[in-house]
């Protein structure tokens, strides 16, 4: 492969890992700082992607209207897509939080898992909503007129990096505020936090919504990168499991760790494609399963032998304690 090809390859790797970093940051708010066990990230991924897709595309007209059905198409700029995705994910998170956040942490896990599967079923079956299993195609890419199509990925990488940095700074700011300290207090000991007069339910709800909104933005970024989405993308494997491994690998409770974990795990994931070359012909089609098996075993090793991840948690987050 010539140099230009390698660079293009690395850029696409950096874009996807950057999108996953957004999800890992969202999960870090929920799990890393508050101890909320969300295993339905794929659900927010899916809703974020579809919301942004339908906000930014026009309603199909003419011949297209016969083949493409979607409930609305607003044809608004990319930024509105991101904001809309965040908003809708926040609302969905609130609806999940109401019945589950007062109960044990397992209940939230089961409910988020259920909502992720349910949304995938809905998008698959209800053709009028967003074109059913065929999904939506031809999503607009922001600032696409600034570069030729084959160089466009550089521009998208800049957009991704900027988004990751903004979200990172936002979360760091929030976590170092009194609000963030309450979240960590809840994670460590709910009873004491409650005895200090903190409304546990409200704080958990805010954390769940904040994290879900970040995940929604991640979903939107994904949709405009691939330009085409369908329900089959948002599986528990690519949508939830790998993000958990990323956060656990990088270090939950550490935003730098979340970003690092996303890049490390995505590099491993992409790197293991070389495995396919070594496999006998009959096993080639099953190579992705072997690669996921490796990721699964990796998670178990992290949980058993390095639960703090690569970076571990930053224990001191206040400027006042040195």
């Amino acid at each position, binding site marked *: 492969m010539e140099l230009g090809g390698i660079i293009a390859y690395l850029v696409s790797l950096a874009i996807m890992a950057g999108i996953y970093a957004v999800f890992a940051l969202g999960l870090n708010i929920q799990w890393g700082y508050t101890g909320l066990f969300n295993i339905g990230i794929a659900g927010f991924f899916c809703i974020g992607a579809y919301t942004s897709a339908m906000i930014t595309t026009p309603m199909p007209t003419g011949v297209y209207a016969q083949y493409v059905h979607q409930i609305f198409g607003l044809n608004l700029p990319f930024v509105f897509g991101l904001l809309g995705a965040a908003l809708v994910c926040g609302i969905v998170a609130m609806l999940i939080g109401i019945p589950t956040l007062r109960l044990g942490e397992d209940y939230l896990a089961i409910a988020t898992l259920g909502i992720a599967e349910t949304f995938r079923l809905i998008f698959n079956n209800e053709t009028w909503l967003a074109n059913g299993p065929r999904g939506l195609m031809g999503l607009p890419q922001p600032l696409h007129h600034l570069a030729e199509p084959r160089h466009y990925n550089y521009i998208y990488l800049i957009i991704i990096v900027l988004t990751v940095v903004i979200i990172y700074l936002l979360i760091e700011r929030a976590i170092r505020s009194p609000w963030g300290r309450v979240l960590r207090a809840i994670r460590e000991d709910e009873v004491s936090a409650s005895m200090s007069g903190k409304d546990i339910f409200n704080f958990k709800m805010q954390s769940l919504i904040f994290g879900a909104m970040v995940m929604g933005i991640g979903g939107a970024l994904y949709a405009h990168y691939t330009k085409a989405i369908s329900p089959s993308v948002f599986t528990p494997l690519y949508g939830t499991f790998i993000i958990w491994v990323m956060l656990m690998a990088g270090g939950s409770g550490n935003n730098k760790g979340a970003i690092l974990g996303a890049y490390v795990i995505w590099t491993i994931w992409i790197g293991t494609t070389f495995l396919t070359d070594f496999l006998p012909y009959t096993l080639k089609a099953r190579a992705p399963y072997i690669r*996921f098996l490796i990721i699964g075993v990796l998670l178990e090793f992290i949980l058993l032998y390095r639960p703090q991840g690569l970076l571990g948690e930053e224990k001191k987050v206040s400027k006042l304690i040195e």
Partner: protein
Amino acid sequence: MLELTIYGIVFGSIISIGAIGLSLVFGIIRFANFAHGDLMSTGAYIALFMVTWALAWIPDTNFGQLSFGWRMLIAFPVAMFVVACIAVALDRILYQKLRRKKSGPVIMAMSSLGAAFILRMLILIFWGADSLFYRPGILRPALQLPMGVKIRPDQILILVTVSALVILLHLFLQKTKLGKAMRATADNMELALVSGIDTERVIIMTWGIGGALAAAGGILYGIDVQLHPYMGWNFLIPLFAATILGTIGNIYGALVGGLVIGVAQQVSTAFLMPTYKPAVAFLLMILILLVRPKGIFGGKD
């Protein structure tokens, strides 16, 4: 409608047998075992391996109207035993270590999620992603019951098998010393420890029973419908719905919960697309969490 209800009871009895194991593990070892559904698929595929390969030397004849014969009769208990061993092995390799490190229930649940993916990937690597049958292409005649209800002999056998397993489990928990120790541990772990109960032994037994029942459920589903690598994952939400409905840790509750969820899922196909069945279980579960989070046998809190 009557026919759908009866199919619902058959399907529900399979959910029940999975949910009973899940509820036992949840009640005694105290974490949500997200690998339970995939233990069901593992059992189904181990039975498939035996029926199509390891026991291929046995003549492939059917028992009367049923869709299987000696091969399955031998494979069934063997697969239950193997999955029981796998469940215990997972505990030794993963959960026991996490318990000793005092990792919380959420870390254990996450570990089980990892185990679920590992089991499923192994199934996908060995058998691929297509649906499989124990007996492909077999005609399955249905019996005509009064009131126009059709039922396959296999389905009657599923009900009989589940009933037998539940009665055996009931006798074990009520009559044997180990069974009583298990109930005591489920009731109060600390008190059980102080009373001199060997809780590690109780935990091994719990995994063994949970794994064996999961395998039975998976095989019965495979006989009734088909085998698919994602079958266990799709069972997960109905399993948890049944467990929560019947109050976590209560096996009789899980039995009732499974039947309720199964009937609700089947009857819903009269109005909804059958693919929405997991969503029906999920909606029921949310409803239970809103109205009575401790389940029907949980008392008011």
